[in-house]
């Protein structure tokens, strides 16, 4: 598989990047109103800080459900690319959802894991990724063959580009530092949902 050629095989070899920086890099590449689901934890905070796109959905609870929500959007709108942005702690809670995504062979879905090795928002307690668990390897084991660690920022952009262009499902593992998020998401669920549905063209 050529897509992995420029990417390290294991978590240890991947560069530690910054969540806000790579979130901005990702958003800058979204040219076709792609939907993005920001998971609980700091993941959705930096998505919010990266610019208010109507195609963004910000979670305020339901830890671990970014991937299932993204899969639902992807099922509903097969012509639109959908990205789930999820933290390592959160995906560990709902790791079975990776197998569901793989079983669906969901072409228009990409999963980006922001792996800081901690439950950062609750005080920085270690997750098991810091103790040896490799989410990219787990995703491959679940059946998402196109899973890779981003070696560095350039590789991350290349993988995002690839996931937007080629059929998925994709999983991109990103090691990130422990920098606080740039902003705090506004906690107004009906408004978030309403804007998202308008952004997806479901409501006028």
């Amino acid at each position, binding site marked *: 598989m050529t897509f992995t050629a420029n990417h390290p095989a294991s978590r240890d070899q991947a560069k530690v990047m910054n969540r806000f920086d790579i979130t901005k890099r990702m958003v800058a590449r979204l040219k076709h109103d792609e*939907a993005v*689901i920001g998971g609980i934890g700091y993941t959705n905070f930096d998505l919010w800080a990266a610019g208010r796109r109507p195609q963004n*959905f910000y*979670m*305020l*609870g*339901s*830890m*671990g*459900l970014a*991937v*299932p*929500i*993204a*899969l*639902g*959007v*992807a*099922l*509903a*709108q097969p012509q*639109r690319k959908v990205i789930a942005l999820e933290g390592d702690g959160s995906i560990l809670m*709902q790791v*079975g*959802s990776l*197998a*569901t995504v793989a*079983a*669906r062979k969901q072409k228009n879905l990409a999963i980006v894991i922001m792996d800081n090795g901690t439950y950062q928002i609750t005080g920085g307690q270690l997750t098991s990724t810091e103790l040896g668990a490799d989410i990219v390897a787990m995703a491959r084991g679940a059946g998402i063959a196109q899973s890779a660690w981003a070696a560095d920022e350039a590789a991350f952009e290349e993988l995002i580009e690839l996931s937007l262009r080629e059929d998925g499902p994709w999983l991109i593992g990103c090691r990130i530092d422990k920098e606080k998020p740039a902003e705090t998401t506004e906690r107004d*669920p*009906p408004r*978030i*949902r309403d804007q*998202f*549905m308008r952004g*997806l*063209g*479901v409501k006028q």
Partner: protein
Amino acid sequence: MDEEAPGAWHEIVRDVLKRHQVKLVTYVPDNVLRPLIDAVHGDSFFTAFSCAREEEAVGIVSGAWMGGLRGIVLMQTSGFATLPNAIASLAVPFQIPVLMMVSERGTLGEFNIGQSLVARTMRPVLQALAVEHHTMTRLDEVEFIVDRSITQAVATQAPCVFILSPLLTGGKVFAK
């Protein structure tokens, strides 16, 4: 009852779901739900698949609703017991009409004490969250309840739970 006979509960449910354009069915299986699961798998109108957890199934149906596709989650009572967090932090505050159908274990001849205890948590949770729910006990009320409640869920942007009583389905009978 002959499962293929027209007018079985699962056929009524399948037909009402179709009429309301509820095309997505996510589930963690249960024996009582089997004929309905088989019915939706056997009809190309539906996209039906199992999930690893009920929470995941609720997340998928929530995302699908926001993308313009209606869905329902099928589960048994023990599956519902894993859902208060997802209902309270996703479906209710975001005003998403997640439809849920629960096969009721734990009552009217239950043989597994774990099931009977878990089942007692269901209605208090639904009441605490003020989630609309109906227990279906008779064949002649199934169509009315499911039809009207889907209309209401969509119109009021609120989740709704349909409880399939053993009085309707026969439930799971005592097995040693």
